[in-house]
Structures are given as C-alpha cells and as structure tokens.
C-alpha cells in the first residue's frame, strides 16, 4: 500500500530560481535564504520518497487566460521546464508517475473533486524552485513528481477549506494504491507578499508565523481564513497560501513538526518553509527491498507495540 510519510511547504519565489541559475547562492543576500534549506535537503535525502506530489501554481506559463483550471493534475510521463521568457530554467525534466497520478485522479473525482487531467504540460518556477530547495541541483530529480497545479492567479482561487478537503481525498487515494510507495506531499508558494499595485511590497510576518503554527497544530482553523482576509493580511498574491492546505489535508490530523524556516525577504516575498511528518509512520531510512518483507514488518509492529506500552506506563 502506498502511504504519505510527510509534507513539506516552501515558497517558490522566481528570484530564488534565478539566484540558483546565475550561481548567486553564496552571495550574502541569497545565502541567508539558501542556508535555511540545508537541513531540509538532508532531511529529504534521508526520507528518500518514492514519489512527490507537488502542489503549485502556474504563472502564465502553461496556462494563459485561455484556460484557467482550478485544480489540474499532471498525469503525463514527463513535464519539461517552461520557457518563462528567458529560456527554460536549466533544470532536469520533471518525470511524472502516470500510474499513481491517474489513480489519484480517478479516486478524487469519484470523491466529488472535479479536477482537470493534464497529459501535456510544461512546468515553471512554481514547481521547479521548491524542487531545487529540497533536492539541490542534481542531474536528474531523484524521484517522480506529480504536479498538481492550482489556480491562484485569477480570483477566486479555491477556498482553503476546499484545498484541505482535496488533500484528504488525495490521502485516501494514495492509501488505496496497491504498490508500496512512500509519498511526500509538497505545498508551495507564499508566504505574505503583494507584487501588484501601489501596495506592492507588503509583508506580514505576524500572519505568516501564526499560519506556520496553525499548519502544525490547528490546520482546521486555517481553513476558515477567508479570501478577503488572506488578501488584506498577507497581500493580494499571499492568497496562494491556500495551496499549503492541500498538503496539510493529505497528512494525518496530528503531525510532528521536524523543521521550520522563515526569512524576509527574497525579492518581494516572505519565505516560509516547514516539514511535517506523520507521527505513526516515522520517516525512516529506506531499507533494501529484500529486508522490507515480513520480518521488517514484524519488527516495526513490535517496536510500535513497545512504544504504546511505554506511553501507557507513563500515564
């Protein structure tokens, strides 16, 4: 059975991608941002997911104003980096996982989420910048990535509650997939920023920090934030933080926060990042397939039972 082991959120500021591509990551301005992701890369290297589901938004690259799907799930075998006006980013082609992706599509549509299926799509910095932040700049991305593009460009984006519920439907879909896959869900975008109009440059660290707290402890509270409040408090473009709630909905109710990073600014944006693990099924180093059979399972069950006894005896 496939299962979701953890969730990660990260900003996807285009300038971060440009800093990587132009080799500016050691400059003091950028070092402040990139140093916050050193531990995350270690964590990811350790977690070794089989698949990543990456929730992101397109920025007038794959979708113009001709077609504006609210939720678009990438079911293709690969997703080339888009030319955003300066030539495609020098990053590997994103390889998808068509089998799991179409399984998710089928499952969530029957669960009444009418998403759009995309079999041909280029992906922009919204997806590739967070992959860089979590995986560095490898020759090939280490695992397949299923892109889930969410409209946050034209108002209204889906509500936070809708996003959260879609996350739950995705969790259910993943859990009903027969292959033994360990899945990490990424939510991208945010945090507070406004890049349009005379109010551009808005940052609200207080809102952001409360949002990070809520993400770990009380995500349902975050699902009640209205679009108006998002735009007022976190900037017109800060509304994209609804995407993080898809990630959160895909995790268990109780999670362990293993890492958090926040800094202002990267270009025009507050950078926020958090790693949450499902508690019952801790991320562990992948064992060779041969030892992942019955014996390992029994060992895990025994360890689990021991933990429960320990908890009981504490009470």
């Amino acid at each position, binding site marked *: 059975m496939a299962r979701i082991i953890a969730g990660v959120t990260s900003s996807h500021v*285009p*300038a971060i991608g440009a800093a990587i591509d132009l080799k500016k990551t050691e400059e003091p301005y950028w070092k402040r941002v990139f140093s916050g992701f050193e531990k995350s890369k270690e964590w990811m290297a350790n977690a070794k997911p089989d698949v990543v589901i990456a929730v992101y938004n397109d*920025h*007038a690259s794959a979708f*113009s*104003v*001709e077609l*504006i799907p609210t939720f678009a799930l990438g079911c293709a075998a690969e997703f080339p980096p888009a*030319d*955003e*006006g*300066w030539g495609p980013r020098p990053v590997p082609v994103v390889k998808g996982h068509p089998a799991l992706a179409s399984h998710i599509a089928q499952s969530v549509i029957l669960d009444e989420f009418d998403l759009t299926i995309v079999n041909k799509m280029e992906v922009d910095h919204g997806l590739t910048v967070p992959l860089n932040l979590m995986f560095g700049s490898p020759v090939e991305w280490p695992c397949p990535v299923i892109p889930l593009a969410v409209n946050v*460009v*034209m*108002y*209204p984006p889906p509500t936070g509650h809708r996003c959260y519920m879609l996350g739950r439907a995705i969790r259910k879909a993943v859990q009903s997939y027969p292959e033994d896959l360990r899945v990490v869900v990424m939510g991208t975008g945010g945090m*507070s920023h*406004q*890049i*349009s*109009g*005379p*109010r*551009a*440059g*808005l*940052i*609200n*660290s207080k*809102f952001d920090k409360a949002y990070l707290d809520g993400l770990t402890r009380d995500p349902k509270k975050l699902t009640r934030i209205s*679009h*108006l409040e998002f*735009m*007022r*408090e976190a900037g*017109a*473009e800060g509304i994209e933080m609804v995407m993080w709630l898809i990630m959160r909905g895909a995790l268990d109710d109780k999670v362990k926060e293993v890492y958090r990073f926040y800094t*202002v*600014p990267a*270009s*025009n944006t*507050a950078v926020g990042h958090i790693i949450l693990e499902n508690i019952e099924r801790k991320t562990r180093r992948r064992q060779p397939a041969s030892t992942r059979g019955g014996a390992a399972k029994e060992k895990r069950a025994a360890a689990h039972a021991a933990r429960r006894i320990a908890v009981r005896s504490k009470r």
Partner: protein
Amino acid sequence: MTAAREKAREKEYDDIPGTFVFDADRSRQGYYLNMFCMSLMKAENRKAFKANEAEYLERFQMTPEQREAILKRDYNRMLELGGNIYFTAKLGATDGHSFQHIAAVMTGSAQEDYAKMMLAGGRSVEGNRSKSGREARAKPAPRGAAARSASKTGAKSPPRPAAKRGKKAGSKRG
C-alpha cells in the same frame, strides 16, 4: 459604465488599498491585454513589438485606454483595466527590467528605495489593511504628511523619521 454595472463592480475587496484584484470581471476586460503580454513569450514577437509598439498592439482587440497604458508603461493602469501582474511582468521583462523595477514603479518609488524597504522587512500591513478603516485591526500609526498626500489608491510606506517624511511628502510611497 451604467449605474447597474458600476454597482456590480462594488466588491468587498475593493476596500483593500492599493490593490486591483484580478477577478472574473477584470479577467474578461483584460483578456486581450493579457494575451498581448503572453505573446511576448516568443522572441520574434518581442522583436516585432519593440520595432513598432503601436502597430504591434493593433493585433490585439484592446481598448484605446489599454493601449495607452501599455505604451506609457503605466503598470497600475494596466492592472486596473484587467491586466494581471504575472502577465504584465512579461512586458517588463521585454523591456529588460527586473521584477523589482516594475514593483517599484507601481509603488511610485525609486527601485533602490523599494529594495531598501524590502530589506527592512517590507511594507507593514499596519495602516494598509483598509481604505475605509473598518478593518484596521491594530491602531494605525498617526498619519503623517506623506500619508495624507498619498493618492487615493496609494498604500502607506513604512514609518520614516518625521522630518524626512515631511520633506519628501508626495514623492515617496514605497
């Protein structure tokens, strides 16, 4: 615009200062403007546009106001007339500008000052939540000369020393 349409355009988020929400109405209104911006993704189109801007714009069914805003690089007006920032940014890129340059232009400030504001933590939400003041949660800072002279859609910049603020009134918003 008829009175009925005017009324339909009254939206709760219009109370947010210095903000043009790209909603269904603006999306419809700005369709060709945004498609023009989208066309600039191709090098040959960028070249044709730069060679004769007015002529190139004839290819898209835009209103005279939209064309004028583009020719003048009035980014706020483009947003007001249905442009979306992710699209209009492509026009800025065609001009060879960084995004921060466009952001500074929209806030009416020099790019250097805008960059400094960001490094200092960005524009505070205090005093920038609401035009009507209904939703100002925290007590807004006392309004200085600069704030009073800011345009009706303008947003307030972070507090500056009073003397400096007085001197630069009207010219600085970000």
